[in-house]
């Protein structure tokens, strides 16, 4: 039998996988650099409306987020189906917004404070009533620069 084995030499030589880690590491570094960690877990439905005239928010560390939408399925029993506000990881009342903005401002350097923008991430099914209340609250604490978060797209998609 050994006689036959020695002769056999026709198969493909195995591919050298020594450089595989290098390739994987290269990809890994790319994604590590490009990654922005999700800051909050959403407890609400948050389907943003579409708009064509959107502007990009440049400096992520200068943005404060306020989420508004219906509680997601797990929270429906506890919080009902009416649109609610979410700040950081918790549901909040309109009155808590002032404290939230103050806390966010305390985290930032003093010279950055005038450049802070509040991004309103509001579900497209939400009513303007709650958004108006939030805007009023923001005016009270003098956080006047706001941004209505929207995806680039045609406005006709907002009706669905």
């Amino acid at each position, binding site marked *: 039998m050994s006689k036959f084995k020695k002769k056999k030499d026709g198969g493909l030589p195995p591919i050298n996988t020594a450089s595989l880690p290098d390739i994987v590491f290269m990809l890994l570094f790319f*994604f590590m650099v490009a990654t922005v960690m999700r800051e909050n877990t959403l407890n609400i439905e948050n389907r943003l409306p579409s708009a064509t005239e959107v502007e990009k928010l440049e400096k992520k560390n200068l943005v404060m987020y306020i989420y*508004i939408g219906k509680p997601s399925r797990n929270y429906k029993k506890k919080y009902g189906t009416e649109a609610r506000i979410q700040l950081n990881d918790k549901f909040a009342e309109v009155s808590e917004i002032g404290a939230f903005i103050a806390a966010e401002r305390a985290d930032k350097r003093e010279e950055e404070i005038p450049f802070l923008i509040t991004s309103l991430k509001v579900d497209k099914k939400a009513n303007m009533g709650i958004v108006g209340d939030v805007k*009023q609250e*923001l*005016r009270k604490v003098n956080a006047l620069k706001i941004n209505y978060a929207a995806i680039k797209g045609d406005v006709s998609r907002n009706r669905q």
Partner: protein
Amino acid sequence: MAKRASPEVNAGSMADIAFLLLIFFLVTTTMEKDSGINRKLPPMQDDEQEDVIIKQKNIFTVLLNNKDQLLVEEELMELKNLKTAAIEFLDNGGDGSCTYCKGKRNPKSSDNPDKAIISLKNERKTSYGMYISVQNELVAAYNVLRNKRAQQEFGMSFTEMQKNVKDVNWVGNKEKLKEQIDQIKLEYPQKLSEVQ
């Protein structure tokens, strides 16, 4: 002294470890940047301020009701016609002081773009999607006018100018470009008021 060869570390599983990390970062990555419509809220006024009298013809009233219907200057309007109506209003130039306006110079409509104010009112039950659609159309109206004006004055549209200012690779005088942008912004100021 006896030479002791250190045992070689098996690096065969390095790829597996790297893959594990790679998959973790792949899953957690969010590439998209935040985008949206920028607005500035009016500051809160503590003391009673004297009401500034604005002529009715300089105000373009847009009302969104509970059923997401659009009422523009007391007339029902479709969303798709809003942009043209807003452009017509802003670019009217009724008092003749606006030399670059292309409008009809209707004396019953706005005096000049500096005085023209768009007032957007909504009710509590208005849906947010519709509200953003309307905001978008109104911002689009301003952008159309600014683009036209910039094209005519500087041979470059306003959006292009704004893009170039942010572009690191753009060759040209950025200071001058910024001045030009400010000039266009002054000629067609965005006066959009959101009424509570």
